[in-house]
């Protein structure tokens, strides 16, 4: 490997202004990836504070911590922030950083489009948060959107939403949506056109495969959302009547537009999470991924079926029994490829030698939690069961199990796994384990017990409830869990900061891993590879480390 790694030039100190300018005008995929990730981390903290306010308000019945108006803004901003300005950018950040390195190329296909997309997304987030100042408009109406993250019509019509809070919501999502479309095109073209010699589609790391499918899904899913946002703006500014029910518009039309985006969006977020697990589990089990072609097929199947399940969010809007049955079966069917993935990860661990480093701990917790999230998903897919559970706290618990228990846990795994590559330093393993256990306890306190009030009839998005309905104790436990999660998150941030300055030097390949990013220096220099690598199998570094027993003989 010596031939391919680059010795870092001696560090040249430069004024802080120059460094900032470099970051501001950069088109380097690694710097943009890190910008995406840092930007998302800031919003993670903001969205977390909003969630905490919501949970403190619900801790006890008849609480007066915040007013209903403030509560409604908090859950709206929490949901919107976490989906559009945390999950999407953080996953794009990792994709940006990792894909060129893993497919052995020097940058994304369109570096300037990459920078443009990032700054659009960043501007979208600022627009949304500007509503806290500018949302009042001239009406003296409330600031910050309070229409819920899926903003059902006609609550967003000018009749029910005075001022400009909804406009900032619409424009923020519209602008960041263009950023997402740009990045999706970039990822798609990079993976299809810039793979290094020898890397056929069938020899590509699974991370690249899953991001490829994600990129296609982003293109197909963000477009209807963008269209809907434009239609809503036309309604609000030019008196169109797409969703304005008082003038004959259709509330159900908005639901279809939103969920044909909204459900594929779940897979847009979860496929990159699967991608992290598919890279990390093999390395810490010391075995190649079990059933690579089946994993690819399952990913494509999820991408495909993922577009035919959206109306399971609408089982209660009065669709006829045939439509309800159709969306029941498609939703259940998507459990099959997802189940195949879980079995393949178990197959990967089977017969291995599992090392319980922090990234692997987060991946194992993910496996358990995603199993439960999938099973509650099956319960919700049975339309009559959903007539009871839909829009209750059971649903809130279910999708937090997916997004926190599934996606955030693998994201933490990814942070610890690639931190040495990105920073050149090892993280602190002890702090990493503290983070894991604290977050695990907090997660289960909050989201396990959140299922129960849903089963007992507690609807979501209520700012208060009366005592004596059997919900009190469960809500209290949920809120206690939040404080564990806060402490864990602070440990995580502290670990990143401490390790960045004080961590041990990581070296090129601290995990004895097999994909190309570990063949270059940590952090990689600009343009990644002095010489473009040539690969023969899915585990090029294995082939180099074990010339007597290379993978390409067997694959």
């Amino acid at each position, binding site marked *: 490997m010596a031939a391919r790694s680059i010795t870092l030039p001696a560090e040249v100190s430069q004024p802080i202004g120059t460094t900032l300018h470099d970051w501001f005008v950069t088109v380097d995929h690694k710097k943009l990836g890190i910008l995406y990730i840092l930007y998302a981390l800031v919003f993670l903290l903001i969205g977390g504070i909003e969630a905490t306010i919501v949970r403190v308000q619900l801790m006890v019945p008849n609480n007066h911590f915040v007013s209903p108006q403030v509560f409604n803004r908090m859950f709206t901003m929490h949901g919107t922030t976490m989906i559009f300005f945390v999950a999407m950018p953080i996953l794009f950040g990792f994709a940006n950083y990792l894909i060129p390195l893993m497919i052995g190329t020097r940058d994304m296909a369109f570096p300037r489009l990459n920078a443009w997309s990032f700054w659009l997304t960043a501007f979208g987030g600022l627009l949304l948060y500007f509503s806290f100042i500018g949302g009042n408009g001239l009406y003296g109406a409330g600031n910050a959107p309070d229409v819920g993250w899926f903003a059902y019509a006609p609550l967003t019509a000018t009749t029910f939403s005075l001022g400009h809070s909804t406009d900032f919501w619409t424009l923020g999502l519209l602008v960041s949506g263009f950023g997402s479309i740009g990045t999706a095109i970039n990822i798609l073209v990079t993976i299809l056109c810039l793979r290094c010699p020898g890397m056929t589609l069938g020899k590509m790391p699974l991370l690249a495969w899953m991001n490829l499918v994600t990129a296609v899904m982003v293109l197909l899913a963000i477009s209807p959302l963008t269209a809907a946002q434009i239609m809503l703006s036309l309604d609000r500014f030019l008196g169109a009547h797409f969703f304005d029910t008082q003038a004959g518009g259709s509330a159900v039309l908005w639901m279809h537009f939103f969920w044909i985006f909204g459900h594929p969006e779940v897979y847009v977020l979860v496929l990159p999470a699967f991608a992290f697990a598919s890279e990390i589990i093999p390395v810490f089990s010391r075995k190649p991924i079990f059933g690579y072609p089946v994993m690819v097929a399952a990913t494509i199947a999820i991408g495909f079926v993922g577009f035919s399940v959206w109306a399971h969010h609408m089982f209660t809007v009065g669709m006829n029994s045939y439509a*309800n049955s159709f969306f029941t079966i498609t939703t259940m069917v998507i459990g099959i490829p997802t189940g195949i993935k879980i079995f393949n990860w178990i197959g990967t661990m089977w017969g291995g030698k599992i090392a319980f480093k922090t990234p692997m701990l987060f991946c194992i917790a993910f496996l358990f939690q995603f199993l439960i999230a999938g099973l509650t998903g099956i319960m919700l897919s049975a339309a009559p069961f959903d007539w009871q559970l839909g829009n209750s706290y059971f649903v809130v618990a279910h999708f937090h199990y997916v997004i926190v228990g599934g996606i955030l846990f693998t994201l933490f795994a990814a942070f610890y796994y690639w931190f040495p590559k990105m920073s050149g330093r090892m993280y602190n393993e002890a702090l990493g384990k503290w983070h894991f256990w604290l977050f695990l306890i907090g997660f289960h306190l909050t989201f396990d017990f959140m299922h129960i009030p849903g089963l007992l009839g507690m609807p979501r998005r209520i700012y208060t409830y009366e005592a004596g309905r059997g919900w009190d104790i469960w809500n209290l436990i949920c809120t206690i869990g939040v404080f564990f999660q806060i402490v864990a998150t602070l440990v995580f941030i502290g670990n990143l900061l401490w390790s960045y300055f004080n961590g041990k030097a990581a070296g090129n390949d601290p995990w004895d891993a097999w994909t190309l990013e570990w063949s270059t220096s940590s952090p990689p220099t600009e343009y990644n590879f002095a010489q473009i690598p040539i690969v023969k199998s899915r585990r090029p570094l294995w082939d180099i480390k074990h010339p007597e027993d290379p993978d390409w003989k067997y694959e």
Partner: protein
Amino acid sequence: MPEILHKSDSRGPHRKAWWVSIMMAGCLLAVQPAFGNLQDPSQMPNMFRPASTHADSILHLSIFVLIITALIFVVVFSLLVYSIVKFRKRADDDGREPAPVYGSNQVELAWTVIPGLIVLVLFFATARVIHAIQGAGRPAGAIEVIAIGHQFWWEFRYPSLGVVTANELHVPSSDPSHPTPTFITLLSADTDHSFWIPRLAGKTDLIPNRVNHMWLDPNETGIFLGQCAQYCGTQHAKMLLRVYVDSPDQFKQWVQGQAKPAHVSDGVNEGRRIFETTACINCHAVSGTVAVGRFGPDLTHLMSRDTIASGAAPNNTENLRLWIQDPDAIKPGSLMPAMKLNERDLDAVTTYLETLR
């Protein structure tokens, strides 16, 4: 409801109340079993205690789905635990890489086909219940109700019985041998709402410009609680819903009482005059008088209801007076304006309303 009565105070005491409530919640946690006995379980909107065919068939399906998913959980959970424990790296590891296994078509086929069969079984069981509930026939004795969702209350109209009421729906219990189910047509006057009484039926949305339907056939009498289950604006939380299931005789009596015009009492002419000459009648109706507003609940038989403000407070003199004086004290963000009456007029209107039995 002592909470409600001092809610118009400044915000200061609320902060204190908040800390006190944390501590009290801590104490409640300690005495939960004793506290649990104080609650009336029939008042809990618990889907696992169905009281109608509709809710019962949902529960049967739900139990079936729960059993299947529990079995899947046990199998996969055990596999996961086994592989983590069995294949962990041992302390005496020899440092050799384990044998690489790239996959197995037979195994992949097995864990594709078996889940596929499970999905088929689940789907057919589900489809049967969907069609049974959505395709239910309408027997001769069925009661027709139109439910209209408003921000943030429920309007109930019985077109064939000449009854209009709000927030508290009365339906007869249904004897399987002579079924008298209630068929509800769901409409909305403004935003989306959702009608949900977990013990009687799954939820169905009320959507503007759309007509939805649902039905329930309660098999026991009593009060069944629920609430709006689709976020509809500021006071979504206090858009509560109460269904009173009466015996057929009680129901007949209730209908007779409700179908009459408003009760006229002597000695409340002053209150009635104020009611009819202020903005009250823009939104409220009292049958047989000049008050014909439709934006707010019909008050013809206000005192026959147990609660006001869509279940947000018990219907008593104090709350009624407070509600007219300052609705935000009970339900901040509700669309009822503070009427700004002087104390004398306030008392007079309250007294008048209390005669509307």
